[in-house]
């Protein structure tokens, strides 16, 4: 190629400054160059162009493949599971077109349950989806097979998929998403062992991974974790400390919880005449505020003391009131409702019931309350959740929808109809993206009655109709996933 480079150099400068010559040429090429350069009736530019033509054709005629020592590529091990059937791939294409991550999750769940793999041609698209959406990673790892792991070696963004069959294997050798899922699975059956696994691997983990894995211990928080969690409060990473603190706040018996309770118990007293007095003593322990309790109220009508007490009550286990007042649940609730000094703290008590996921007290509270508290709804038995959601829908439509969206269960047809009737009046809020994000909860059967749902305002019709068409596609794809 030396001669071609020489030619380019001449071209850059121009033949007026640097006439073309035969530098770097030999053999027949040099012979041809000499003939061209010796031409008497051609100018310098002709000579250049003729030589360029010769060199160009010399290059084209003599192209050779490269022979290089390439390190042999690691061949992907064969798969042990079958690929999903072509019908499932056709459904996958439709799912991908909707751009709904939830629908994709449903499709992957089908594959994982059927113990089948994604065919190789689909892997790049799916691994890319997993890279962009953490929620898909464990499922893609479960269905990507050896080929997905193999591809991860070439693209670090895709390095979240490892082949691991047992829960221990996934914990030991999996990518973070797989380890998270393995730990979560174990936590549900053996909480102490799950913590032991995490404790053992703790020194080897990075701060980000520590934070992610530690959050597993929150569901459910376990009293046996308290000593270890408290030891984590000296960790360097702020995120790790915050996560540990959050979990400790959920554990009655932890130092933090007891500190909160001591202040609350000191501040709220029941006298011998059955009257409750509220007086917050001065808090000298800075660790209370360092744990996230705000010192100042944002609302002029609420004093700083009330604001502090409100926050502390919302982090104290509701059972403590029964011991403190020496009354059963119903009577404690009644006390909060009847005593003027306690009335402002009823929402804090509701928050505490929700924070500690205290299902029994949630039922008691709703039985004795005239007011609707959305935070408690998820703790009620399913039939009551349904009943309360429908009963209070018109009063708190947005809150009920928000709760329904947070709940992973599929909505009942009547609730879904009410949600959509409301959504039709607010199509800019409850838009196509909303439908994409909640298709898991939307029952397929709603498709039959979608045409009966129309917006109140005429100017919403076009926008709602577009949402309806999109929803139709989502429901069609969901129904096809269910029929696979």
């Amino acid at each position: 190629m030396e001669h071609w480079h020489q030619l380019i150099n001449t071209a850059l400068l121009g033949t007026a400054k640097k006439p073309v010559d035969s530098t770097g040429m030999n053999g027949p090429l040099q012979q041809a160059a000499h003939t061209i350069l010796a031409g008497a009736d051609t100018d310098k530019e002709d000579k250049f162009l003729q030589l360029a033509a010769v060199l160009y054709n010399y290059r084209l005629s003599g192209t050779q493949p490269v022979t290089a020592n390439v390190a042999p590529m690691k061949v992907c091990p064969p798969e042990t599971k079958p690929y999903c059937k072509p019908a499932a791939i056709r459904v996958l294409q439709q799912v991908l077109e909707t751009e709904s991550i939830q629908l994709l999750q449903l499709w992957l769940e089908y594959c994982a349950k059927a113990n089948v793999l994604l065919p190789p041609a689909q892997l790049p698209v799916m691994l890319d989806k997993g890279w962009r959406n953490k929620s898909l990673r464990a499922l893609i790892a479960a269905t990507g097979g050896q080929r997905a792991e193999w591809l991860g070696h070439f693209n670090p963004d895709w390095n979240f998929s490892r082949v691991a069959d047992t829960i221990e294997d996934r914990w030991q050798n999996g990518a973070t998403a797989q380890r998270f899922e393995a730990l979560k699975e174990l936590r549900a059956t053996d909480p102490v062992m799950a913590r032991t696994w995490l404790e053992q691997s703790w020194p080897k983990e990075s701060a980000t991974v520590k934070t992610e894995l530690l959050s597993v211990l929150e569901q459910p928080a376990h009293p046996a974790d308290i000593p270890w969690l408290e030891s984590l409060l000296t960790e360097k990473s702020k995120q790790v400390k915050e996560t540990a603190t959050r979990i400790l706040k959920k554990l009655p018996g932890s130092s933090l919880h007891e500190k909160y309770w001591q202040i609350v118990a000191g501040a709220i007293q029941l006298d011998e005449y059955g009257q409750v007095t509220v007086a917050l003593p001065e808090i000298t322990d800075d660790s209370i505020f360092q744990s996230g309790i705000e010192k100042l109220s944002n609302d002029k009508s609420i004093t700083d003391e009330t604001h502090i007490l409100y926050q502390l009550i919302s982090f104290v286990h509701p059972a403590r009131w029964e011991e403190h007042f020496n009354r059963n649940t119903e009577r404690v609730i009644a006390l909060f409702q009847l005593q003027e000094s306690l009335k402002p703290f009823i929402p804090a008590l509701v928050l505490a019931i929700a924070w500690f996921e205290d299902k029994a007290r949630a039922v008691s509270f709703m039985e004795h309350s005239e007011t609707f508290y959305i935070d408690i709804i998820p703790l009620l038995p399913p039939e009551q959740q349904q009943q309360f959601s429908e009963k209070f829908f018109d009063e708190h439509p947005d809150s009920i929808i928000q709760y329904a969206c947070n709940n992973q269960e599929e909505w009942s047809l009547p609730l879904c109809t009410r949600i959509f009737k409301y959504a039709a009046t607010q199509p800019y809020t409850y838009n196509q993206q909303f439908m994409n994000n909640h298709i898991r909860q939307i029952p397929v059967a709603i498709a039959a009655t979608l045409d009966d749902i129309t917006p109140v305002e005429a100017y919403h019709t076009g926008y709602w109709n577009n949402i309806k068409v999109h929803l139709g596609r989502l429901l069609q794809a969901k129904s096809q996933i269910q029929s696979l």
Partner: protein
Amino acid sequence: MNLSDEQVLAMAPDESSRKSGKDLANPAKWVSKGVSDIALWGECQGSGSKPYQTQIDTGNMAFKCSCPSRKFPCKHGLGLLLLYSRQRASFPEATPPSWVSEWLAKRAEKDEKKNTPATATEKQPDTSAQAKRQQARMQKVSDGAAELLRWIKDLVRNGIMDMPEKDPAFFENMIRRMVDAQAPGLAAMMRELADISYFHDGWQSVFITQLTRIYLVIQGYQHLSDLPPALQQDIRTLAGFSTSQEELKEQNGITDTWQVLGKQTTEEDRLVVERYWLYGINTKRPALILQFYVRGQSTIANTLTPGNAINAELVFYPSAAPLRALIKQQVTVPANHTFNGYAGWQEVVTAQTAINEVLPLYNDQVYTIADLTPVWHADQWWLQDSRQQLMAMKKTFQHTWKLLALSGGTPLHMAVTGKETQYEPIGVWHEQEYKIL
């Protein structure tokens, strides 16, 4: 007819048709639909009161729709075909309704007419006037070529160092001059010169290569009578003379089962160029079908489906190394996954040298090559053959990951396009099936 989503979507004329076609692959959109041995049809509820009637001749893969779209195939055609490929069972087998059967009958009649030789009563062209016009054009092109040569020589004399700073008008004026000189081929070659990315390393070599090609065409044209007849045709084509398709169709073609290996689409100033790469299973020869249309004004009669096969008679355009062809007659047949091809790169370069010997200005070719493995080496992807020889994959190739996923580190038979040292896979044989990339 057994088409995958990818194959159907590959027929779309543009991205928006592809998207709209996907939206219409929804049973709720279709008031009625049906299928027979030779056709597929459906009525799609659009914005008007009457549904659009969409019909597809599945034998020749031809589309017709009553919608006003000038795209081809329109979104309704794509949507219907996509829906059929996904939910075949939802299409009842039936006798085509009258609006379908009438269209099919008209098509059959047209085909028959095409195959009937022209009668003597048809008006004979005035050959002497034709020759005069031809002579005048040849002179115009010759003058244009001479002017272009002067321009090139000026460039060579003054050096190309300042090319990146040149005003676009520097090239535009000469491109317009070539159009005026009735040399659209030279104008297109100049356009390629203007479009070189002057901000990338190595533009100098690309520039001189293209300049040399233009120079070769000019020289070829100016010494046309000295060249072998077949090469004369190539030079005329490169200068911009077209070949009469009607005359070509009167010639005998080559009948074979042709695999449609892939489709590449490029667009320049709303002119869309579709390149279909074909390979004859029995004749073991490649072919290139070109289709041109202005965006949104497509009038193509037939659509080839990448990954499928056609039984067709192809007439090749006259050339020293015939590649471009037109389809004289075609019938879509089930996909044929037979592989025939070269054993490795050495055979490919030998074949290229043979082409270069007779056509020193050849363009991208299609090759089917056995056992190629994508490998990462020296910061780029290569295709390694069974003798461990490498050729670089084009940097613009967009489906590296899909190729890698299909390969898994093992060799695959591949169809590639390209020339010299840069190639782009367009399909692979994977688990005994040809798959487009």
